[in-house]
């Protein structure tokens, strides 16, 4: 699956942004008009000051150029290679209006970043004083790295926690090789580590979460898409790729590399994610899409309008039914189901001898969240929306004020640069929130200062973000 996707992508963008040498970079940099309130900058999710970093290349101040990029986007090097620039900065370049090709912002950015790393690139802290507050970033992907780097640059104590041996998340493991080599991603991780960010390898389960929470003043969730809970039925391992994770399915569809499904698709679960997946399957050409739900219509977690839309697109629903086993049969798979009854307390019991079999070509599982997200949403009050962590977009704060989130687990799977922007916004949100909390604590220690003044300071801090 993954390799097919990569080769498809590789075909569509054969050589994404090959390197420029210094002379070519200077020529290209000089094509930039140095627009005022430049639209390219507005179109960059990380708001890199494009005209400035390009002007710095033109005046042979590549170190300053790299700093300008990194200031807005610590993963400037990966983004220079992985960003869909046609849809972002270069798509907004005013030169299109003159029927000229846009300034090659991506390649210029890559030039600046590579020159920076070749010179042994290191970042400096932005402020001298250390701050005592501790922040844990769970997940070591782009969102967490961006968040961690920003907070560390402001003097906070930051620890990035991931279960995988190598940090970098999708940048290290997931982005196609021809766009971004794992070594390049690790080089960026090293730069972040160089700031004094701690990295820890550990699986975050309930106990670990408890420990992390106790030891931290704020927690950033950069969990990525994770996986939904696998359909826990007999034979689930045997059908391989025909069993599809709903979030992955949706992400693939959105990023323009849809997975192929056959004519008959079963979706288990009836939340908003299930509705999205069912409709997506329909649009991708499935003739018959059936949603299985173990409870009744009235109890579905999905919004009503989502359900109506799915119905409208011809999705079928089977209520009070639960899959129990799955097996390969002929070209497709057979899903063994059983009817379930519900008592007054809502407890479900399988009805004896009610077994039946549905044949299909793919089974999409849309039940529940990844175990960690489930834990967070159920026990920690981190609200979810359509399978994603719900946040305040400007600050990254979740319904539990101590928790902030960003990246794929929030946006459902976009680009590296979106994750970086989320991570940085959240870092500013965290810094503002921690400063405000500290100010409040100081105020209660120091009754002389009116509370409202303290609030205002805190607010201004937040606004500045």
């Amino acid at each position, binding site marked *: 699956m993954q390799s097919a996707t990569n080769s498809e992508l590789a075909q569509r963008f054969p050589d994404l942004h090959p390197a420029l040498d210094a002379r070519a970079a*200077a*020529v290209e*940099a*000089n094509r930039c*008009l*140095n*627009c*005022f*309130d430049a*639209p390219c*900058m*507005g*179109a*960059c*999710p990380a*708001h890199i*000051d494009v005209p400035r970093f390009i002007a710095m290349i*033109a005046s042979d101040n590549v170190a300053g150029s790299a700093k300008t990029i990194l200031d807005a986007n610590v993963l400037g090097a990966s983004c220079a290679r992985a960003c*869909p620039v046609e*849809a*972002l900065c270069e798509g907004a370049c*005013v*030169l*299109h*209006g*003159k029927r000229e090709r846009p300034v090659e912002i991506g390649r210029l950015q890559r030039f600046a970043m590579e020159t920076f790393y070749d010179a042994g690139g290191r970042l400096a802290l932005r402020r001298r004083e250390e701050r005592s507050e501790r922040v844990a970033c769970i997940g070591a992907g782009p969102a967490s790295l961006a968040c961690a780097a920003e907070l560390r640059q402001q003097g906070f104590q930051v620890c990035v926690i991931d279960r995988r041996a190598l940090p970098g998340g999708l940048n290290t493991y997931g982005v196609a090789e021809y766009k971004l080599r794992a070594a390049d991603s690790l080089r960026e991780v090293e730069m972040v580590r160089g700031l004094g960010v701690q990295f820890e390898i550990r699986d975050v389960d309930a106990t670990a979460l408890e420990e992390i929470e106790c030891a931290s003043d704020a927690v950033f969730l950069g969990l990525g898409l994770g996986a939904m809970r696998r359909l826990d039925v007999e034979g689930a391992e045997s059908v391989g790729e025909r069993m599809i994770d709903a979030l992955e399915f949706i992400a693939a569809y*959105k*990023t*323009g590399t849809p997975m192929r499904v056959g004519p008959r698709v079963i979706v288990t679960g009836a939340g908003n994610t299930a509705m999205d997946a069912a409709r997506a399957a329909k649009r991708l050409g499935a003739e018959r899409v059936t949603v299985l739900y173990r409870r009744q219509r009235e109890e579905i977690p999905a919004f009503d309008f989502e359900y109506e839309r799915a119905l409208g697109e011809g999705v079928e629903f089977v209520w009070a039914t639960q899959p129990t086993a799955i097996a390969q049969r002929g070209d497709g798979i057979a899903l063994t189901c059983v009817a379930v009854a519900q008592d007054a307390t809502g407890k479900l019991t399988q009805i004896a001898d009610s077994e039946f079999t549905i044949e299909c070509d793919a089974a999409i599982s849309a039940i529940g969240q990844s175990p960690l997200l489930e834990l967070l949403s159920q026990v920690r009050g981190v609200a979810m929306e359509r399978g994603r962590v719900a946040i305040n*977009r*400007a600050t990254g704060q979740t319904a539990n004020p101590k928790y902030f989130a960003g990246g794929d687990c929030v*946006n459902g799977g*976009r*680009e590296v*640069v*979106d994750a970086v*922007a989320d991570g*940085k*916004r959240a870092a*500013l949100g965290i810094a503002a929130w921690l400063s405000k909390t500290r100010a409040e604590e100081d105020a209660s220690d120091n009754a002389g200062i009116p509370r409202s003044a303290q609030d205002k300071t805190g607010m201004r801090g937040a606004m500045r*973000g």
Partner: protein
Amino acid sequence: MADLTTNFAGIRSANPFWLASGPPTNTGEQIMRAFDAGWGGAVWKTIGEPVVNTSSRYSSVDWRAQRMMGLSNIELISDRPIEVNLRELAEVKRRYPKHAVVASLMVESKREAWHEIVKRAEGTGADGLELNFGCPHGMNERGMGSAVGQVPEYSERITAWVKEVARTPVLVKLTPNVTDIRAIARAARRAGADGLSAINTINSITGIDLDTLMPQPNVDGKSTHGGYCGPAVRPIALNMVQQILSDEVGGPGVAVSGIGGVGNWRDAAEFLLMGCSSIQVCTAAMHYGYRIVEEMIDGMSNWMDAKGFAVIDDFRGKSLGRMTEWKHLNLNYKVVARIDEALCIGCQLCHIACWDGAHQCIHVDRVSGPVDGPVEMHARPREMGRERIVATPIAKLGPPKVHVGPYATTLERIPRVDETECVGCNLCSLVCPVNGCIAMVERPTGLAAESWAERSRANIRG
């Protein structure tokens, strides 16, 4: 096809394009190749007692990744023996009798020395002589070149010595390194010069290497000022030519060979329009080779055909009459900037130029239909903040791009001019990267034309 034949101070050539005295005219072999390429004439690399040149000799100013906007050199006159130069000159003249070959000369400031070199040069059959009073480096330290050209009396005296024996037209090449070039031009004419060549190179230091801290060019760890030329000096040259030609004392009827930054037919046409009757080129030929003359000939004749000019004299000097002194300009004339919204690409360079560098009257506060007339909103330039949340668009899911207004560029990005505040300085139209997008249009004031001279005279009277 237009007739490009030229008569400059009695020297005839097939076209007005001559190579200026310099490296491209160093040897007979080069000049013959240049004539084959199409050049109408050439001024020989200055002949005199052979010098020793340094290595290196040139340095340049690049601009926005373009090479050699300006070139500077510390080369002296010819380093070849006088007899070799003269023998080759005679050979060239014999083989190319219809091409203009002018001998550029520079010797000690002694009457006999000048008499001797003039006779020897004319003995070769050269069509004319150009007295190099311009070289601003090296030769001036030995009492020649600009050391002569900067003092009207010296220029006059030496020109007179030359005229005592010369039978061919005598041109004096002027240095721009003076406060008033007209003083030298007048002196040369008083002594009987048949024509003037302007300009020679301008004193300059092109730059300093920021790694080594060494000014350029580097001659074994030392540098010296050089003579500046190339595209950067054209406006300066054009002004000096105009000063000479508009001069009521030395101007009328003088033949001027325009030199300085000419690289194509357009540059050449400007010098001719200012009143020059031939053009000399050095740097552009050093940069691209003799072949550039083909484009110059073709471009010039196409332009003349399009304009209905049959011969060069049909347009020569036509723009000179439009030049005047500031005090004669009409103070009651007013233009204002007008943006063509259909062409605007939304770079907002006009806005920031007017805002910071002119008169704060181009605004970017438009959100719906065009706003004309005397509206003053003075919205502050927008600041980019992290509050503006942007995400990678996902074609099927993202909100559609908002586009406001009937033009290709969204109205929000098209600036508007507050015409009541616009002083008509032109700045915005100069910075606008789209040709024809900002026009300066006349806004009649309804007042009779009045210049500063008239106004102050009226004030004195009233």
